[in-house]
């Protein structure tokens, strides 16, 4: 696949059809879990509200900004690759990785404070959802970082646009999932 790929063709969305099947499966999985969380909150609204107040939305806000910034650099790296600016391409992928690592550091600090306060898996229904959903998302971020690191370490001549777009799509999927998690877990209860 080269730069002449026609993304208007139903079989060739940016990132590839298989990546988009994965993205939709992931979004549906997280979507159902979040809808279930909202449904469960109706039977115990006080517990969900008090539990939500135990979270610090500043962590969630910072991580949203961090992931969106990482997504900006990733989108820019795809553009630079298409322009054959290989140096800028690698630099921007590097920044995307850096912000991904910052996301994990902030998450680690947040997890540490929650574990210290005894708000662990099994504490109540809200925190069961909190841990399962955010940890599952963290696993996606780690896998995304491995993919991006592989991309940046690959020989320039061996990377094709399809590889770059597929890697970028996976990374943006982490953004999309977080954009669903952030309001439901940190803001609405």
């Amino acid at each position: 696949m080269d730069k002449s790929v026609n993304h208007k063709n139903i079989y060739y969305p940016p990132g590839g059809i298989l990546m988009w099947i994965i993205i939709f499966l992931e979004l549906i999985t997280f979507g159902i879990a979040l809808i279930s969380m909202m449904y469960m909150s109706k039977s115990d609204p006080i517990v969900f509200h008090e539990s939500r107040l135990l979270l610090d939305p500043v962590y969630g806000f910072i991580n949203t900004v961090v992931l969106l910034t990482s997504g900006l650099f990733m989108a820019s790296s795809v553009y630079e690759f298409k322009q054959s600016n290989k140096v800028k391409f690698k630099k921007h992928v590097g920044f995307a990785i850096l912000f991904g690592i910052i996301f994990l550091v902030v998450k680690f600090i947040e997890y540490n404070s929650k574990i210290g306060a005894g708000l662990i898996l099994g504490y109540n229904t809200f925190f069961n959802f909190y841990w399962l959903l955010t940890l599952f998302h963290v696993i996606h971020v780690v896998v995304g970082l491995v993919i991006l690191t592989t991309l940046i370490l690959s020989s320039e001549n061996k990377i094709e646009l399809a590889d770059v777009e597929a890697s970028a799509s996976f990374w943006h999927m982490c953004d999309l999932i977080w954009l669903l998690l952030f309001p439901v877990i940190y803001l609405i209860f």
Partner: protein
Amino acid sequence: MKKHLVVSWIVLIVITGVASLLSILDVESSTILLILFLSLVKFLGVSFYFMEMNRSNSFWKVAILLFVTIFLLSATIIL
């Protein structure tokens, strides 16, 4: 860096800030739905501009819009 990407990023950050402020100011059900709506606007911003789905076949655009609509409708019914 492409100008439209930077503009998209600024809009996404501003929407994130507005949604966060709304959650501090008020917890009415209409506000909750507004927060979810704003988040789904961000979702569409990332998928259409960062992931370039605005250049894809209509099938994929409709699929994304369908997911967002079903998610928001489900939340509206439950909340």
